[in-house]
């Protein structure tokens, strides 16, 4: 490993240690409790098993996405300003550490945390589904030793829902969305020191990113939308990432098959966008007075 990569690794590891020791794990634990409590509550309605699982899947992955979003937003927004405010940045950047190494190390440290969070939370969630699986099968079979063809089909459907390999696509897409939110927050944190400003502007970009696809389709359909307005919209859709692309998660959770090609393209788009924005952030930070 080159000296530069080793320094990035050192900063990333230290960032991960910092966030892990700052009670982030408590958030995950809280998530687990809410999920467990929630699932027990919703099963009281005794709806059809397959709908119940579908509901649980939506609830679980929404919780993973939301918790991750909060950590990506709040965690990243504080990464650089906190170092400047505490003046710990002086002892780092007075050594032979390039500023882009510092930025990259901070980002990859937080990305490692987000990866860990998504893995732990989804692992917990899968465990919950495995624990509940026998009870769902019992609800269908009523403990009978011989099963009807309908019961067998229903049991098979339940098992398919729980062990569906396409759920990995959901995890990858959630992870990519979080990585994108984090890199946007990091970009704003190289421009400003106020955490509120960083969170607010990142949220704004997130919302615009969600709406831009719909807005583009709507305006492009109207014939009057031409000239500079069309150019401005084109520029906006280049600058702001299309968060609407991640809504495909709902399709996967709804049982529809989404090709791996779409997922890999979205991941590639996220990777390129993140690297470019990371580069711009490093350039801005290079000239920042500390």
């Amino acid at each position, binding site marked *: 490993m080159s*000296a530069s990569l*080793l*320094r990035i*690794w*050192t*900063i990333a*590891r*230290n960032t991960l*240690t*910092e966030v892990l*020791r*700052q009670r982030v794990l408590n958030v995950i634990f809280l998530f687990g409790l809410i999920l467990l409590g929630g699932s027990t509550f919703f099963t009281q309605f005794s709806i059809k098993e397959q709908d119940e699982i579908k509901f649980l899947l939506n609830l679980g992955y929404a919780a993973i996405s939301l918790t991750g979003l909060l950590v990506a937003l709040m965690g990243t927004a504080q990464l650089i300003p906190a170092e400047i405010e*505490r*003046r*710990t940045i*002086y*002892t*780092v*950047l*007075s*050594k*032979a*550490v*390039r500023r882009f190494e510092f930025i990259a190390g901070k980002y990859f440290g937080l990305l490692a945390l987000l990866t860990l969070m998504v893995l732990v939370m989804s692992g917990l969630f899968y465990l919950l589904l495995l624990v509940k699986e026998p009870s769902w099968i019992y609800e269908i079979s009523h403990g009978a030793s011989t099963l009807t063809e309908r019961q067998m089909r229903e049991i098979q459907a339940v098992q398919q829902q729980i062990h569906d390999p396409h759920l990995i696509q959901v995890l990858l897409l959630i992870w990519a969305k979080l990585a994108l939110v984090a890199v946007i927050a990091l970009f704003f944190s190289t421009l400003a020191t106020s955490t509120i400003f960083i969170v607010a502007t990142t949220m704004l970009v997130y919302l615009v990113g969600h709406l831009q696809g719909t807005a583009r389709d709507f305006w492009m359909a109207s014939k009057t939308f031409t000239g500079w307005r069309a150019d401005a919209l084109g520029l906006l859709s280049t600058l702001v990432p299309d968060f609407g692309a991640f809504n495909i998660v709902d399709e996967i959770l709804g049982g529809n098959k989404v090709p791996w090609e779409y997922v890999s393209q979205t991941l590639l788009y996220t990777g390129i966008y993140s690297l470019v924005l990371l580069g711009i952030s490093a350039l801005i930070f290079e*000239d920042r*007075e*500390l």
Partner: protein
Amino acid sequence: MVHDVLKTDEAVFAEDLTKSFKLQWRRGRLMALDGLNLQVKRGEVFGLLGPNGSGKSTTMKLLLGLIKPSRGRIEIFGHPAGTMEARRKVGFLPENPYFPSFLNGREALRYYGGLCNLRGSALQDRIQELLKLVDLESGALRPLKTYSKGMLQRIGLAQALLHDPDLLFLDEPTAGVDPVGSRQIRDIIMGLKERGKTVVFSSHLLEQVQEVSDRVAILNLGQKISEGTLADLLTVPDQVEIRLKEVSPEQEAKVREILRAQGFAAPEITRPQRSLEEFFISVVNRSQKL
């Protein structure tokens, strides 16, 4: 143009160093440093003095490349300040240093060592050596948030020395430290000087500056108002001090008589006193030995 390192023995070379900060809301600019010329020779202990707001910390930040000058040039061992080559040769202890509070002393040194590309047993040995030097072997596993001010300064000094730099910038290294800790830091500075290291430090404790510095510069309102060796600056040109040991009252009267006979109308003969610091340290050391 890069200063020719072979032709000069200067560790620090600053010419016409000027720094102004833009004030918010179009309130103009604040001149923090105005046309400072500074040369520090290799192996010299150089004291930067001045009241609060005189530009000492700004000068240090400029020499480290943490901020960029509005005008002028700076070289560290012939390399432009802030470049990787310059920073490899420099160690820095900021004023009121803050370190990642979630780490203990040893972990913090391991982190900073990683940033200096130190690894494995070389890093472990260096950490052990420095913990011994700054007298923190027993507190190495305590979290930094439980450290006293003096301990923080000493761990700060250790992190600045990790990569065995040739030049050290110490910003108020003894601020808020008790006299015993302050003496320890002074002894470390003296030890560094003996090993041929260059030290540039700022302090409000003039007696301490006098004890360790070869040369000093006094800043006020961003300008250098005086510079020179202590001998040049402090010697009273037309007076002589004679120190005699074990003088009886009769001998003292005789000396007075001789001096009067030589035309010195009112010679001043007093009993020399120890400094309060010397007295304090001897009392504390004696009580610790009991």
